[in-house]
């Protein structure tokens, strides 16, 4: 007898999937990764490799321990690994990024219940987790120092990071370089242009919405004028572009409504300026993580009424009546 498929409706389905979206974000990060490879050669490749591998192994191990099926095919572990790598300078010692990745995938994501249940952006919390315990890394560096491979010289690594230079008011790059590509700092910070190309792809694919990145960048731009900085240098240097387009837009840890996205983005922009005003530390990661915690609250506060609860005073109703 012929086998007919009988499953509940709707019987049509858009060709979208989580794994496809994750893969698209990975594709969108290819341009900036290439720029990092050009600047840092084998170091960049080595660091990205360590992170991606650690991410895959960590996810497999945690899911096995919790009796869940492997989920490598959803590409989320690979993406987290890549994002963690891009948050570090290429010449970082490998145990530091490995631990950051382990924290990101194992603790921040899998222990929270897996993809969808994490409150914080895994890559960012993984990244900052290794900042919070410097003494431990001092100890590790002493004992594991000999295990860091030598992969050639990279002349920019001994310089101060561009962000530190910005803080001192001694930016050695012209605007062309600042937009196109400049070395120093984390790998994901070397080229706003490459990040924009990737972001354009994600916007075109509708995986991200313009509201969060634009509100972050515009807020930081405007407030930087108030604190007396050069606004263009201020937003182009450091992690603002990477954070705004690739971290703050993470589906799981950002608000769902348009209004919520704007509130979220503006608050992150304000926090970035506050952190940067305190000292030459990059506040992007902390700003996004702090606002991650507020997402449930923002979603609740911006909840729109049901179609069955018409309130003629809301903007929605007014717009519709005239249209």
């Amino acid at each position, binding site marked *: 007898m*012929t*086998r*007919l*498929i*009988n*499953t*509940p*409706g*709707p*019987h*049509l*389905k*858009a*060709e*979208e*999937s*989580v794994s*496809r*979206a994750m893969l698209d974000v990975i594709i969108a990060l290819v341009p900036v990764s290439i720029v990092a490879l050009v600047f840092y050669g084998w170091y960049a490749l080595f660091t990205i490799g360590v992170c991606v591998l650690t991410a895959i192994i960590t996810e497999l191990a945690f899911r096995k321990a919790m009796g869940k099926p492997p989920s490598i095919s*959803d590409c989320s572990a690979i993406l987290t690994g890549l994002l963690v790598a891009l948050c570090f300078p290429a010449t970082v010692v490998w145990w530091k990024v490995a631990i950051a990745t382990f924290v990101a995938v194992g603790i921040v994501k899998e222990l929270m*219940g*897996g*993809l*969808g*249940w994490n409150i914080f952006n895994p890559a960012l919390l993984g990244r900052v987790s290794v900042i919070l315990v410097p003494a431990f890394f001092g100890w590790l560096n002493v004992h594991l120092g000999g295990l860091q491979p030598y992969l050639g010289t990279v002349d920019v690594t001994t310089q101060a990071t561009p962000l530190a230079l910005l803080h001192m008011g001694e930016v050695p790059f012209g605007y062309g370089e600042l937009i196109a590509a400049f070395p120093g700092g984390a790998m994901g910070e070397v080229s706003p242009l490459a990040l924009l190309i990737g972001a354009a792809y994600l916007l075109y694919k509708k995986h991200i919405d313009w509201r969060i990145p634009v509100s972050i960048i515009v807020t930081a731009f405007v407030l930087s004028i108030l604190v007396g900085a050069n606004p263009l240098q201020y937003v182009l240097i450091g992690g603002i572009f990477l954070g705004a387009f690739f971290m703050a837009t993470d*589906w*799981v*840890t*950002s*608000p*769902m*409504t348009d209004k919520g996205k704007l509130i979220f983005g503006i608050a992150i922009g304000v926090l970035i300026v506050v952190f940067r005003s305190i000292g030459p530390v990059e506040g992007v990661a902390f700003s996004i993580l702090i606002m991650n915690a507020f997402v449930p609250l923002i979603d609740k506060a911006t*909840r*729109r*009424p*049901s*179609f*069955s*609860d*018409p309130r*003629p005073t809301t903007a*929605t*109703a007014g*717009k*519709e*009546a005239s*249209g």
Partner: protein
Amino acid sequence: MEVKTFEGGAHIPHYKSFTEDKPIERMAAPSEVIIPLHQTSGAPCEPLVKEGDKVKIGQKIGDCEEFFSAPVHASISGTVKAVEPRMTYTGKEDQCVVIEADDGPQEFEMKQVRDPDTVSVDEYRKCVREGGVAGMGGAALPTHVQTAPRQPVDTLLLNGAECEPFLTCDHRLMLERAADLVKGAELKMKSIGARRTLFGIEVNKPDAIEAVNEQIKDRDDMEVVPLAVKYPQGFKSHLIKAATGRDVPRGARSAELGCIVRNVGTTVAAYEATVYDKPLIERIVTVSGPKVGKPGNYIIKIGTPLYHIVEQCDIGDLEGCKIVLGGPMTGLAQSDLNSSVVKSSTGVIVLPPEMVRDTMEYMDCVRCGKCVDHCPMFLYPSEISIYAEAEMHEEANEWNILDCIECGICSYVCPSHRPIVHMVQRFSPEVEKMIKKR
């Protein structure tokens, strides 16, 4: 041309090109019909015939004393083979009358018995009731229930949106039978005391808009409202909002909104029941899908088993396919070719294996917000699905699970492939029970 619409919703591929140019055509009568005695959202009918009885086409074979119900009629002449529970379109067994065709002609004789211009409102209501007319757009509400509203209703809104993909039966009906449609609208308008009729038609049917406009050009009480092509434009609440601008609060009846919505097919069926005494024994059904050899808009007798349609329309190998009775968004998949066409069957849609994407495993919600963006009810399907899955009644109710109109957009767009509508359908009755207990 001013095009109206609602907020939210989604553009879903139409797939209408298979049949939109196919004129309405009568399908050969089957040798046997299986007519369910319960085809409406009202009460089921009791059989009026028994095994061995001879029946004539159009003869009443089931009725019920409840007001909220519509009788059923023999769609062919022949002998009653059985009155017994059979698998129906709902996927459950239900009482059916099975009729074996005789050799005589199987077409209803159209003889005018009443003049549409002089027929009284009471007579019209009676004809609609006796003709077993029920909502043919999918809702299957007994139509006579809505012919005598207690409050005055100023607007009759005829639903020609046909927003579901694949379906073109209403499109062809408006195009080919615009004159009868307008006459039917006039009868209905009189019965509810409305002062105007609006025809809501999506703009992807410009020829239908033109055909209706041609019929009403000399009238100032009828108007076509062109609607944007967007799903679920044809749902009652959203059609009212788009066409009249009126809000549709929870629990409000159409009459309280001053607006009664009726499907265009139902309007013509009510007209035929009044003028020709022709009960609802057949309807236009869109048979479509990429693998259907002879797709089209066919007049098919109520009770026609799917195997007959599969044969007539040259639908080849069905292995791994999905056959949907109704539209592909809200229709019901069938696992048995013995189930039959009923009054609300807008389409028989055959989806080949490569289009059947909903059998895959689903993942946890990743909070992407796509369902929230598209929900025409402004709900949070993501939250609702999480609470329905966890069987958390209070929370599901707090997120307005009961406002869901089950249009299916959330499941359509979900990248985690969560069967959100199905979760809502399973859990809503439990939430309702909880509320009643209070």
